[in-house]
């Protein structure tokens, strides 16, 4: 049996080591901010920074839920298409008007249905992965393809314009005390989910299932239920993201709404230091992760980089962020 020798080390070294081990993503983030500030001074203007937060919040909300799924050892590739499906239903219901031109139903009904549909897709993902014992990569990929196709069919491949009532468009475009409402939603969700992950029993079981499924099962943890709940949670987050996205444009594009969002969300989670093999990770890392992605997107525009090259830069940033966090096992 190997035992780990504990060498005495100075207090300062151990504190510095602790910060580096637990918050290296924050260090990466600060490096990126400094580099951006020097390269383009306009970047640091408050309105630019707030704009970044607004733009990045939609993927960010999905990434929060995705963190749970990935910590539990799963993955969800259906988020983007599910966002489009739930969003399309939201727009279709929201644009219905009475003969007098008033909305046919109060706004909360379409919002609720939108979220319920997204949660429903999460439930389907969870049930199939756990009960049929199929890899989540394949299940969610297939479910995503189905969701996208259904959306395109019902929208006949077109873009559908919603009802531009202010109470609806304000959700995605408004601000409260200068701070963009989408970002406030993300922060509120972060607080709730952070408490869930760190203080609730469910949160602990999520780590246990991702860390060692077998040991979790022997400890009586209802492994399948925990997994299904994580998929439903990312579904709920996707529903909320759909609401923000639809509200920003007051329209849904059957083919392009939410396209690639699942990958951006997964990227944010990984850049945030959560391990794809499960059992490790934290939400604060994910928040820094999606803000880093937002900053990188923003800098491309600031520095007039050809949009065709944005993927190359993003890929390099991901590799850099993950490399710097890599530790010897």
């Amino acid at each position: 049996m190997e035992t780990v020798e504990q060498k005495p080390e100075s207090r300062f070294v151990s504190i510095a080591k602790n910060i580096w081990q637990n918050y290296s993503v924050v260090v990466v983030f600060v490096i990126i901010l400094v580099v951006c500030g020097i390269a383009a001074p306009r970047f640091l203007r408050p309105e630019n920074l707030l704009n970044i937060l607004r733009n990045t919040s939609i993927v960010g909300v999905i990434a929060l839920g995705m963190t749970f799924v990935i910590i539990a050892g799963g993955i969800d590739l259906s988020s983007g298409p599910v966002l489009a499906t739930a969003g399309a239903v939201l727009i279709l219901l929201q644009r219905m008007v009475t003969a007098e031109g008033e909305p046919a139903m109060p706004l909360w009904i379409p919002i609720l249905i939108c979220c319920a549909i997204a949660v429903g897709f999460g439930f389907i993902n969870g049930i199939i992965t756990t009960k049929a014992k199929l890899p989540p990569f394949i299940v969610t990929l297939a479910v995503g393809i189905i969701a996208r196709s259904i959306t395109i069919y019902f929208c006949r491949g077109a873009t559908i314009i919603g009802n531009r009532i202010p109470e609806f468009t304000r959700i995605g475009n408004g601000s409260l005390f200068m701070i963009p409402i989408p970002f406030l939603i993300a922060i509120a969700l972060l607080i709730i989910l952070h408490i869930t992950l760190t203080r609730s029993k469910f949160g602990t079981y999520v780590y246990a299932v991702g860390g060692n499924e077998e040991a979790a099962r022997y400890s009586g943890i209802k492994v399948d239920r925990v997994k299904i709940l994580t998929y439903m949670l990312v579904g709920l987050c996707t529903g909320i993201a759909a609401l923000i996205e639809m509200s920003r444009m007051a329209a849904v594009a059957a083919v392009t709404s939410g396209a690639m969002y699942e990958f951006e969300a997964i990227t944010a989670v990984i850049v945030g230091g959560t391990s794809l093999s499960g059992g490790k990770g934290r939400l604060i890392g994910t928040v820094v992760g999606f803000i880093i992605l937002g900053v990188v997107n923003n800098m491309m525009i600031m520095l007039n980089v050809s949009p065709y090259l944005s993927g190359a830069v993003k890929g390099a940033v991901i590799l850099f962020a993950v490399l710097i966090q890599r530790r010897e096992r």
Partner: protein
Amino acid sequence: MAKLLSMQGICKSFFGVEVLHDVNFEVEKGEIMALCGENGAGKSTLMKVLAGVYLQDGGDIYLKGEQLAAHADPLERQHLGISMIYQELNLFGELSVAQNIFLCREPRRKGGLIDYNRMYDDSAVLLKKLGENIDPRRKLGELKIAQKQMVEIAKAISFNVELLIMDEPTSVLTGKETAILFDLIRNLSAQGIAVIYISHRLNEFTEVCQKVTVLRDGYYIDTKNVPDVTVQDIATLMVGRTITESRVADFSGDPDAVMLEVKNVTDDKLRDLSFNVRKGEILGFSGLVGAGRTELMEVVFGIRKPETGEVFIEGQPVTVKSAIDAIKCDLGFVTEDRKESGLVLCRDITENTNYIFWQKSKGLFKNKKTTAENTRRMIDRLNIRCQGPDQHVSNLSGGNQQKVALAKWLLADAKILILDEPTRGVDVGARQEIYHIIKELAAAGIAIVIVSSDLQEVLTICERVIVMHEGRITGSLISSEMTEEKIMYYATNV
């Protein structure tokens, strides 16, 4: 003339623990040599040194009088004529029979492409030599286990083998298949190929082997000619001449206070097993590896589904279909492999000790204060040496990991505790501590079932032992009757 094989003064340590002490071992050309010993006697290690899987720390190996280069290279040893057939066959199910036989040495055409026709022809010739009619084009995964073994032997022969090592080849075979294998072994021997044969079935030795070498605790004990020894003699050599007796008083609690009763458990590995354990009793399960002890405990804990069988707790019939049910019945199970199924290594001590406690307590949220108190109490009670409750379990030593795995069940107030190999990979000091804890728990009225392959351990703490052999209970002894020899006698079922 020089012996075919001569191993002189072989020493080997793992992680500072010496598992082979100065072992000598010799085999003549064409000889069938049995190698036997208890679990952990060093048989497999010695053979893996010979096959080039491990490099010895000291000692020399001579083949036909020539010293072998001291580096671990199985392929080189195979080319020298030494092949080993492992218990878990090293074959690829998705490749064809011929591809398996010629893996990494495929015959080539000019230009480098594989000459499949030659490969199939050569394979067919090799298999025919063994009296087998397997189509070399078939996928290996479709074959029966006995046929797979033949493919392994064919592979060994294709290296012009002079010395064939077989590690428990019959453990997966039926009686008829075993007879065929024995014929084959005799046949190989007649062709001048020496066979080293490892098995737990002592009566097989007298049937097929000419000589038998016994190892015990990593020491070479003796080599005997088979006609001169009985199976009992071999068993005695395996456990040693000194008779170690139990150091535990007989169970003195209420003999009628049965906590757990298991009746007629049967499945493909278990044959109609029944046992009970009483309040405050420490019951041991002894036997050789593969006797079905762990499988039986998995049935009790609801992880494994038997074909038939009933479980009673305090006289009441219960259905245990999952770990969740078992926990509801106040059953606890510290598994054999703590890394695989006992602990979540990447999480801290607090979480690992409280998983079951949290499930038994009410509410959606963890109570920070209770949780911290629980952990602190367990660290003190079990003397878990750590930097603090938030230390990751992966950084603890084996003994302390085992204590954490145990703490989880103590917090859950388990009334029946199953401990599978509770001191495997645990150092001597921590081992005594764990024994002490187990005795304390029993004194507090917990019924304890210990599965152990370590005879010393059984003699040290168990008040009663049930011995199993190949899925059957072959004996039951109370502590005043227990000796290593008796347990070994039942375990080998001679």
